C-alpha cells in the first residue's frame, strides 16, 4: 500500500542548530510512525556514517519515507530529509530544502535562536518553504518556552502562537508535531500527466548497481524500464531499479510526482550524475530543467597528497566517489616538489576538510598529507594581469606583484553579553573590523565584524567557543576582497625551501609567526639521522631558525629467552609508524607538520 495522491504527501526537512536535537527528533518520528521499532533503534538512525555518530553531527543529508495514519483518519506519506547543522554544510541544507515544501524549525528551549539557525531559516524562506516552529528540550529545568517563542517571533519573524513544545528525548508532544506536518505543510504540486522532471538531491556509488541517485519527482512519473536523460549533460540511461527508503530500501515499479525515492540505471560514470540536475524521460521529455540549487563555492583550498605516492590513483578514485554526493568538494590535480602528485581540493570550511580527510583515510584506507588550508588571493601583477591564487607556493616573484587582495567575510556572532569583551579581543587579534552590535534581548547580543577569511579558517570557531564557554554561535558570508599587506613566507628544511609549507601571512605578523612555526616544526618533526635546521624566510631573507637534533638512539632492547619473533614484530610496528612520515628530500616529516604552519600564538605554552 503506497500509492498516494499528492494531497496525502508531505515532503519536509528539519532545520536546527547543531545540538538542538534535530536527529533525536527525527528518530522519535521514525519510531512513532512505526518505521523503526524501538528494538531496531540505534541512537540517531539517520546519522549512518561512523564519523557522524562519533562526532554527534550530521554531515550527509539522508532521506526516509514513512507512513502516517493521521487523527483525521487518513493515511499520509511523509518524506523526511535530514539536514546537517554545522556552518560548513549549508550547501547540504540548501539541497535538501529544494526537495521539500516545508521545514520543521527546531530550537532548543534552553539555548534560544543561534546564528546558524538564522542562516538556515533564511535559506528555507528563500525556497518558499512553510516553517513549522518546534521548541525542543522543554523537559529540561533551564528551558524557557515563552522566551524562546518570543525570540523566534522577534528575530526570525515567524508567528509562534502555535509552536509545539516538545521533548524529542522523552517523546513528549512528538505526536502533535506529526499533526502539524499534516495541517501546516503544503502537499507537493505537480501533475503525474506532465513530462517527467525529477530533481537529483544526492547520490552515492554502489558497486553492484552503479551510481544511485536520490531524487524527488516534481512532475510526471518514472518507471522501471523508462529511458531517462540527464538534462545538464544529455547522457541517457535505462532505469533498472526504483525504490523508496524506509529507511531500508524498498523496490517499487513507479515513482509518481510528489514522491521521493532513488533511481539506479547502471550508471558507471560518477560524473554523469550531478546533484542539482534534473532527470527527464526520453519518451515524455520536459523542455526545461528545474531550478538548480544554490551552488556553494569552496572557501578554503588545501593540497591533498597520498603519503604513499603509489596511492595516487586510489586517491583520485576516492575523491571522484566522494564528490559524487558532495558537489561542494572541488579537486584538480596538482604537483608539489616536496609531496609529489596530489590534488588541490576546495572545501566549504575546516570541518568539511576534516570530514573529507577522515573519510578518505577511513573508508578508502589512504593515508594523507594535507597542506595548510589557504583562501583564494587576488594577486595583481605589474603587467595588468590578475591571478586567483589558491596555493601560496605559486605566488609570483614579488617584483612583479603590484598588490594583493584577500577575501573578507561579514561575520555575525551571537553571544551572551558577558562574553562580548573576550570575543571583541579575539576578533581584533584576527584583524577584524567592528561593524555593529545589536541587543537581541536583554541577555544576548549580535556582534557583526568584517574579518579576513584567512583569519577564521583556522580554529576561529574553536576559539570563539572556548572564549564564550561554548555559548557563542557564528555564521559568515563572503563580503568581497580588500587590499592587504601580505607576504609569502617560505619554510626551509635542511636549507631547501619546501613548497608545501609556504604560506601567505599578514606582514606585521610575519616575524612572530615565523618564529612560532619553526619552533613548532622542530617539536613535530622527529629527530633525523643528521641535524636539520628549520628556517623561515621572506623574500630570501631568513627571519627565524630552530634546529632538529640528530637521532642518537634507535635500538631495540635485548631479546630475552630468544624471543626473536617479538623483535621482528617491533621492527614492523616501527616501520608502520614511519609510513605516516613523508620523506621530503632526506627529511622525514609527519603529516601534522604540514598543517602546523597555521598555528597561532595561543597554541604556545
Amino acid at each position, binding site marked *: 500500500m503506497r500509492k498516494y495522491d499528492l494531497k496525502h504527501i508531505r515532503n519536509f526537512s528539519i532545520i536546527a542548530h547543531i545540538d538542538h536535537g534535530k536527529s533525536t527528533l527525527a528518530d522519535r518520528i521514525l519510531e512513532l510512525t512505526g518505521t523503526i521499532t524501538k528494538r531496531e533503534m540505534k541512537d540517531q538512525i539517520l546519522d549512518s556514517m561512523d564519523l557522524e555518530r562519533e562526532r554527534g553531527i550530521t554531515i550527509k543529508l539522508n532521506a526516509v519515507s514513512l507512513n502516517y495514519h493521521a487523527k483525521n483518519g487518513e493515511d499520509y506519506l511523509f518524506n523526511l530529509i535530514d539536514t546537517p547543522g554545522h556552518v560548513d554544510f549549508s550547501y547540504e541544507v540548501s539541497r535538501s530544502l529544494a526537495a521539500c515544501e516545508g521545514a520543521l524549525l527546531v530550537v532548543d528551549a534552553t539555548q534560544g535562536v543561534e546564528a546558524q539557525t538564522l542562516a538556515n531559516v533564511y535559506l528555507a524562506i528563500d525556497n518558499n518553504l512553510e516553517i513549522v516552529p518546534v521548541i525542543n528540550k522543554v523537559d529540561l529545568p533551564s528551558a524557557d518556552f515563552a522566551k524562546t517563542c518570543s525570540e523566534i517571533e522577534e528575530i526570525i519573524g515567524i508567528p509562534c502562537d502555535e509552536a509545539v513544545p516538545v521533548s524529542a528525548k522523552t517523546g513528549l508532544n512528538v505526536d502533535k508535531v506529526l499533526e502539524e506536518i499534516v495541517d501546516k505543510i503544503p502537499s507537493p504540486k505537480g501533475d503525474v500527466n506532465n513530462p517527467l522532471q525529477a530533481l537529483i538531491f544526492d547520490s552515492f556509488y554502489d558497486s553492484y548497481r552503479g551510481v544511485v541517485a536520490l531524487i524527488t519527482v516534481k512532475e510526471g512519473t518514472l518507471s522501471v524500464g523508462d529511458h531517462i536523460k540527464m538534462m545538464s549533460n544529455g547522457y541517457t540511461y535505462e532505469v533498472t531499479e526504483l525504490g523508496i527508503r524506509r529507511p531500508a530500501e524498498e523496490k517499487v515499479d513507479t515513482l509518481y510526482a510528489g514522491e521521493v525515492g532513488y533511481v539506479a540505471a547502471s550508471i558507471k560514470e560518477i560524473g554523469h550524475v550531478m546533484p542539482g540536475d534534473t532527470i527527464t524521460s526520453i519518451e515524455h521529455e520536459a523542455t526545461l530543467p528545474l531550478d538548480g540549487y544554490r551552488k556553494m563555492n569552496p572557501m578554503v583550498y588545501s593540497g591533498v597528497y597520498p603519503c604513499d605516492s603509489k596511492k595516487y590513483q586510489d586517491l583520485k578514485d576516492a575523491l571522484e566517489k566522494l564528490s559524487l554526493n558532495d558537489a561542494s568538494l572541488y579537486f584538480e590535480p596538482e604537483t608539489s616538489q616536496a609531496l609529489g602528485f596530489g590534488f588541490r581540493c576546495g572545501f566549504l570550511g575546516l570541518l568539511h576538510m576534516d570530514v573529507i580527510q577522515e573519510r578518505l583515510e577511513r573508508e578508502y584506507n589512504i593515508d594523507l598529507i594535507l597542506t595548510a588550508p589557504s583562501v583564494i588571493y587576488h594577486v595583481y601583477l605589474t603587467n595588468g594581469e590578475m591571478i586567483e591564487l589558491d596555493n601560496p607556493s605559486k605566488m609570483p616573484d614579488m617584483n612583479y606583484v603590484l598588490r594583493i587582495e584577500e577575501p573578507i567575510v561579514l561575520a555575525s556572532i551571537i553571544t551572551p553579553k558577558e562574553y562580548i569583551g573576550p570575543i571583541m579581543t579575539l576578533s581584533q587579534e584576527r584583524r577584524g573590523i567592528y561593524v555593529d552590535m545589536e541587543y537581541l534581548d536583554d541577555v544576548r547580543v549580535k556582534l557583526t565584524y568584517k574579518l579576513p577569511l584567512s583569519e577564521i579558517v583556522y580554529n576561529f570557531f574553536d576559539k570563539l567557543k572556548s572564549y564564550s564557554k561554548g555559548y557563542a554561535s557564528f555564521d559568515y558570508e563572503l563580503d568581497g576582497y580588500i587590499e592587504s599587506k601580505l607576504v609569502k613566507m617560505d619554510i626551509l628544511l635542511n636549507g631547501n625551501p619546501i613548497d608545501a609549507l609556504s604560506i601567505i601571512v599578514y606582514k606585521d605578523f610575519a616575524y612572530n609567526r615565523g618564529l612560532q612555526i619553526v619552533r613548532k616544526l622542530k617539536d613535530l618533526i622527529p629527530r633525523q639521522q643528521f641535524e636539520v635546521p628549520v628556517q623561515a624566510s621572506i623574500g630570501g631573507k631568513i627571519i627565524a631558525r630552530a634546529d632538529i637534533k640528530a637521532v642518537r638512539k634507535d635500538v631495540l632492547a*635485548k*631479546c*630475552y*629467552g*630468544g624471543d*626473536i*619473533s617479538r623483535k*621482528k614484530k617491533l621492527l614492523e610496528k616501527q616501520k608502520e609508524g614511519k609510513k605516516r612520515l613523508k620523506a621530503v628530500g632526506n627529511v622525514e616529516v609527519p603529516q601534522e607538520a604540514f598543517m602546523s604552519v597555521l598555528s597561532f600564538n595561543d597554541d604556545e605554552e
Partner: protein
Amino acid sequence: MTKKITKEGLYIHIPFCQYICSYCSFCKVFYSKNFVLRYLKSLEIELKKYDSFSFKSIYIGGGTPTSLSLDELTNLFNMIKPYQVKDSYITIESNPDITLDKIKLLKELGVKRVSLGVQTFNQKYLKLIERESSYSKIKELIAAFNDQGINNINIDLIYGFNGQTLDELIEDLKLFASLNVQHISTYCLEVSPSSKLYNQGYEALNEDDEALFYKTIVDYLAKAGFYRYEISNFALHGYESKHNLIYWNNLEYGGVGLGASSYIDKIRYTNTKSLTKYLNNQFDDYKEIVTNDIEKFYEVMLSLRLEHGLDLKKYQNKFHEDFLIAKEDVLRPLINNNELIIEDGYLRLNKDNFFIIDFYLRKLLF
C-alpha cells in the same frame, strides 16, 4: 633407544623470584613451594616435545632459577639430563644472594657458566630497582664460584637511570671491570609497561645521555679487555656467550617454560606468559612459520647486531642470492657514506652506529 638429533641450544625459563625488581618486565612470580612443584611437573611434560633431540648448550634463565631449593634444583637437573649431549654447556642465571651449598650443588649438577644480576654498585640506584648488593659481596661470591671451579662468569650492568651522571657510570664501569669476570652484558634501563617503575611514573634518562653513556661503556670496556662482539655484550676473547650466539647466528634452539621461545624446524614458537595456562599444560601461544623470506629477514636482523656483521658468503650459500646485489639500491648510498662497511666478506655497521641499528634494519629489511 633411537639415536637423538643434536640441536644447538635449549632455553629453560624458571619464573620464580624471592623478590621482584622494580624494572623487571619478564615473566616472573613470587616463589611459592606449591607452585614450583606444579611448575616443574608441567615443565617435564613440555620437555617431552623434545624427546628426539639433545642439546649442546642449555641455558636456565628467569626469574631467578637459584630461588629454587636444593631439592627443586636437583629435580630440575634430573629432568633435563635426557636432553643433554655428553658434555652439554650449562649456563644458569643467579642472584647475588645465592648460598654456598647451592653453588656447590650447581657445580655437581654440571653448571659451567653463571650469569650474575649485579646491575649497579651505586646504592642510590640499587634502592630504586629494589635490589641489595655491594662490591665486596659480589667479589666474594665470584671467588666462591671460582673455588668450585666455575670460571666463566657474566655480570649484568644497567645504565640510564634518571639523573645518572657520567661519573657515576664510570665508577660502576671501574668496579665491574675490576672483578674476575669474563663477560659483561649491558642494558639501557627501559621503563616497560609491565614493570613496577612504569606504574610509579618513572622516566628513564634522555636519548642524548643514553647515547653518550653507551659510547662511554664501549670505550671503557675495550680498554679493560672486554671487546664488544654484539651490541650490548662484551667479553674477553674466547668467552663470548655460546648460548646467545645461537640466537644471533640464526641457529635452532628449543625453549621450555613460561614465555620461552623456540626455533626448531622452521617454526618459531613463543610460550604463553600466563602461569595458569602453563600449569594447565597449555604451553604455546604464538607460532610463526619461518618461510625463506622470513628467514632472510632474521638472518640480516640478527647478524647485524654482531660486531663482525653479516657473513655474505654464508648468506649466498643459504639463500642462493647475493645480498649486495639484492639490496644494491639501499646499500650503495649507505656504503658510500661509510655508514655500512664491507670487510673480509662481511657486511657490518660502522662501529659508531650500533646505537641506531634499527634505522639501518628498517632500510634493509622493508
